[in-house]
C-alpha cells in the first residue's frame, strides 16, 4: 500500500508539472480526481447544491491560477493544498452571500437514503424538520465556527488536522468547536422542549 501511495504521489507530481505548463488534459484529470472531495465539503458547509457548485468552481479556478506558484518542495501534496483553498473559498462565499442566503432555504429533501421507514410519511416529515432546524442552528454560527464544526463533525478530521488547514492553533480550534457545539446544544434544548421527540424512534 505504501508503495502504491508513493507511485501515486510520483504520478501526481508529473501530472501537476504538465498542468503547470497549461496542459488542459492534466488540469481536467486533477479536477476529476478532486472534484467530489471539494463539492462534498462545500455542500456540507452551505447545504445547497447550487452554492456548493459555485464554491467548487471558485476553488478550482483559484487553484489553477495559483498553480504556477505551487511548489512540490515544501512538502504539501496537491490534495491538501487544494482542500485548504476549498475551505477558504467556502468561508469567503458564505461571507459574501450571507444576506442572500438568509432568505434562501436548504435544498428540497429528496436525499434520504433507502430505509425501511422510508414509506412512513411521519418519519420523513420529522427528519425533514430536524434537518431544517439544524440548518437554522448552523446559520447562527460565525463562518469560522461553522467551518470548524463541519470539518470536525462531517468531514471527521482531527483537531490537529483542522488547525493545520485553518492555519491556527489547536487551542483556538477547540475553543471555536466548544462554542459551535455549545450554541447547537442550547438551540436544540428549545427544540426538544417544543417537540417531545424521542430521538431513538427516528
Amino acid at each position, binding site marked *: 500500500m505504501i508503495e502504491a501511495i508513493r507511485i501515486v504521489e510520483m504520478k501526481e507530481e508529473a*501530472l501537476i508539472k504538465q498542468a503547470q505548463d497549461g496542459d488542459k488534459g492534466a488540469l481536467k484529470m486533477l479536477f476529476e480526481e478532486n472534484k467530489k472531495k471539494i463539492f462534498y465539503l462545500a455542500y456540507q458547509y452551505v447545504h445547497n447544491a447550487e452554492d456548493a457548485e459555485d464554491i467548487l468552481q471558485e476553488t478550482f479556478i483559484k487553484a*489553477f491560477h495559483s498553480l504556477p506558484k505551487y511548489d512540490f518542495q515544501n512538502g504539501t501534496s496537491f490534495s491538501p493544498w487544494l482542500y485548504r483553498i476549498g475551505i477558504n473559498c467556502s468561508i469567503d462565499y458564505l461571507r459574501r452571500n450571507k444576506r442572500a442566503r438568509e432568505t434562501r432555504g436548504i435544498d428540497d429533501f429528496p*436525499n434520504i437514503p433507502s430505509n425501511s421507514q422510508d414509506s412512513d410519511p411521519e418519519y420523513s416529515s420529522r427528519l425533514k424538520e430536524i*434537518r431544517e432546524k439544524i440548518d437554522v442552528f448552523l446559520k447562527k454560527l460565525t463562518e469560522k465556527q461553522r467551518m470548524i464544526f463541519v470539518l470536525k463533525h462531517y468531514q471527521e478530521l482531527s483537531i490537529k488536522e483542522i488547525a493545520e488547514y485553518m492555519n491556527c492553533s489547536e487551542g483556538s480550534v477547540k475553543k471555536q468547536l466548544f462554542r459551535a457545539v455549545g450554541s447547537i*446544544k442550547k438551540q436544540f434544548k428549545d427544540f426538544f422542549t417544543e417537540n417531545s421527540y424521542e430521538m431513538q424512534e427516528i
Partner: protein
Amino acid sequence: MRCKKFKEKIILDLYGELSEEEKTALESHLQECAECARDLEYTKKVFQALEYTKKADIPEANWERAWEGISSTVEERPKRQMSLLLFPKWAYAAAAIVFVFALGIIVGSLWFPTLQKGPLPQKASLVSMDQSLKEHFESLKPVLAEYANYSPAEERNGTITVDKEILEGLLIQNYLLKRAIASQKNPALQELLEDVDLILREVTNLRKGDKPTLSLIKDTINQRDILFKMEIFQKI
C-alpha cells in the same frame, strides 16, 4: 469553573479526542457530578440528532457544467504569456544569435560522427520509453485480466475490488505515456493506450454491484484483444 472544563471534555470525548488519562479523569468526575452526567446524556442526544443530517445523501453536482466554467477561465493563461513580447527587441535579437550558435554546435557534432561516443541521447530516451511502456503493461495485466475473466455467474456480489490508489496510479501513468508517445508515429500503440484509458476510466467510476458495466468492461477487453496486444508489444 471545574465543571465547564469537564463539559468541554465531554465534547472532545464524543469526538474521540481524549487521551486515556483524560478519559479516566472524566469518567471519575462523571461518577461524582450529577450535572455533568446529565450534560453527557444531553450532548449524546444532540449528537444523535445531528447524525440524521449525516444520513442525507449528498447530491451530485453538474460536473460537466462546473468543468466548462473552470476551463473557460484557464484558457486565458496563454494570453498572459504573450507579455514576453514586452522585452526589448534587442533581447530577441541576442537570443536568436545564441540559438543559431547553439544550433551550429549541434549540427557540427552530428556532421562529425567520429567525435560521438556512446548512444545518442534521443535513442536512450526511446529505449527508456519502451521500458516504461513494458513496465506499465506488466502492471496493467493482472488488473485487466481480473475484469476479462469476470463471470456474472460467479457470486461475488457483482464486484471486483481493486485498490483505488493503484487504479488512479495506472490511469495517470497511462495518460502520461499516451502523451509521451504522441510524437512517435505508432498509431497501433496510440490506439492501445486510448483503449486502456477508456477501460481504466470505466473501472474507476464503476459502482459496487454494477454488473452491466462489468460485463461491458469485460467485452471491451476481450473484443479489442487488449491483453493480447499488450503481450505482443512486450515481446517486440
